[in-house]
């Protein structure tokens, strides 16, 4: 389940190249000040693309954070990105989940829809079909919480857009490879 191929951003180094792939990288880092800036700075400094990025501490005792980055580029560029990340001193391990294959990817989104009358019914029907939860409701609005693959969120967003979509907040992708082995 790969992330959808978004239209290339104007900053993408990938423009004009045909064999562009989207990969999800899992990066274990020391949770120390500046570590995220190092990772993000590496991407901007070397002209790599970030499609989504999530980060949080995953092992409090060891102060380890896990960064999940969705990036796109030629296979050569993606290999470079992994190696350049490994070069950063506070980085423990870089795993290309897409290369490993068969990873589970999930994203959480909050989606605010405004409307009255039948629009509200339609919004709720769609929410049910997508298993989105209502986490806030007023007389004229809902906030839906939806967890799933990025493509599913995209699809839901497109469906509720004509009803009265006003705001979307997405977490970016968290990912893990299937099976018993850790990264």
């Amino acid at each position: 389940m790969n992330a959808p191929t978004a239209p290339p951003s104007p900053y993408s180094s990938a423009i004009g190249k045909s064999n562009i792939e989207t990969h999800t990288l899992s990066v274990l880092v020391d949770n120390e000040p500046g570590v995220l800036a190092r990772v993000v700075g590496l991407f901007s400094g070397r002209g790599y693309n970030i499609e989504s990025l999530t980060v949080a501490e995953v092992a409090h005792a060891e102060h380890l954070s896990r960064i999940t980055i969705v990036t796109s580029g030629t296979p050569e560029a993606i290999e470079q990105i992994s190696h350049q990340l490994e070069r950063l001193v506070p980085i423990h391990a870089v795993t290309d989940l897409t290369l490993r294959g068969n990873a589970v990817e999930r994203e959480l989104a909050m989606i605010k829809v405004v409307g009255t009358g039948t629009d509200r019914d339609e919004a709720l029907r769609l929410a049910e079909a997508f298993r989105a939860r209502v986490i806030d409701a007023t007389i004229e609005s809902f906030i839906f919480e939806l967890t799933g693959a990025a493509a599913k969120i995209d699809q839901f967003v497109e469906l509720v857009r004509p009803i009265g979509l006003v705001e979307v907040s997405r977490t970016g992708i968290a990912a893990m490879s299937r099976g018993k082995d850790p990264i």
Partner: protein
Amino acid sequence: MPEVAKTRMKVAESEMARIMTGAEMVVEALKDQGVDVIFGYPGGAVLPIYDVLYDHQHAIRHVLVRHEQGAAHAAEGYARSSGRPGVMLVTSGPGATNSITGLTDALMDSIPVVCITGQVPTHLIGSDAFQECDTVGITRHCTKHNYLVRSIEDLPRILHEAFYVAQHGRPGPVVIDIPKDVQFARGIYSGPQNVEHKTYRPRLEGDPGKIELAVTMMASAKRPIFYTGGGIINSGPEASRLLRELVASTGFPVTSTLMGLGAYPASGENWLGMLGMHGTFEANNAMHDCDLMIAIGARFDDRITGRLDQFAPGSKKIHIDIDPSSINKNVKVDLAVVGDCAHVIAALIARWKARGCKADPGALKKWWSEIEAWRARKSLAYKHSEKVIKPQWAIERLYAATKGRDCYITTEVGQHQMWAAQHFHFDEPNRFMTSGGLGTMGYGLPAAIGVQMAHPKSLVVDIAGEGSILMNIQELSTAAQYRLPVKVFILNNEYLGMVRQWQELLHGGRYSESYSEALPDFVKLAEAFGAHGICCSDPADLDAAIAEMIATPKAVLFDCRIDKTENCLPMIPSGKAHNEMILPDSDEVSVDAAGKILV
């Protein structure tokens, strides 16, 4: 008292004695790391450290530079010529920002430098305080790693870890930013024992399976070549010794990048000269036509490869490098061996011998005869003149005058740098200090000061251009203060020569801003700085003038007036392949639009 209890007591006692201020920890750590020289410039945010240094002048010699960029290049020169990390100490704000060029230079050329910067006190960070800047933010991109020390408890570990990170793996600069309150705070100091980074463990040994495969590929090669780089010199003198052994065992030809000169001796019989943009005809053609390229500690830089889609088209490539990110970065290789050069070369030699490998003698003989034909083209030739000093000849005479002496060469950046690389011949590693990756004009003089501090008795010559030398000329004052007899040999053509050359070749001779109309009188300038000035413009006087320079027991500024319009050749023009060189006596130069946009 039992032994164990005694030891415990000793440890406890020593720990008691080891409560000290942050500033004292800095100096203690430098001593524990074996640092005997540092380059720096004081200022408000490092005063506590300078105060401690006042009491330790016998152990650590501080060299007061005239600009922090000079401190960084001096630290680089010290490191490159000695194999030990260079250390610099500067203040916050402008002290840190002035160091940036030197740090970037050290990053690009993989030079171990530890840079200690002062920072405003912790509670003022982020308030735009006087001489505050985001040093770790600014230096994140131009260091291998950097630290902002937030508490005294972290300081001893960070100090030692910085030295570990700077020296291990692919070396590079490390910044330690220490707020002034941390310098005054008291804490428990711990020494460098067992300090290594918790996760940073560069791989030294090459994968045995890959070594085996490399040996197999080498044994069956018909037109092999060793392409060696600065990684061999960074690996230490043992790597250079092993390279010579490997070359002798295989009989393969060897070429090197600018950074790797001296790893294999220029007088060695398998030496092809430097390769790349200003490399020799034989080295570049051998690279182009080889069937096996063994890259060792080199990174396929654009100055080396020329046009990528025609780079060594019929070759298999083995790449040996300690940095995995160097592999397949610019050129896709067939076999990558990640590891330290010395370890991998040693393993290659061991397996080559154990398997009784021999290069195919017939094929190798044929290969060498092809190389000899290219060599016969004499691509470094130039027309000597009795009237005007040719820059190539000046370097040759300098080489002849210093041959057999204990001599170190630094350079600035430009034509003179390439002429030095082509015509000064290096037989030992760590003897040639030049800014390769970043191409920093103004590198050579401060680097020479660093070299001279590491080797007080040796002859240290900065081969310079009149443009570059003015970028850090203030360091002549440093040389005077410490009685450092560095020699600055300026090839003065009044032009920013490499710019002029490119304008001639690529922009139709429109010499936009490349002529220096108002140059100083270098002899008087030397005297003003307490150095000795020499000016020479007649070829007949050159040898005597060089002899005078060498014999002068203090710093010398040698204004060598050369042919103003000599071009540095041979040359691979931008966007061309290795076999499309401009040779000295060819006048055909064509660069297409695609080549013109390259630098």
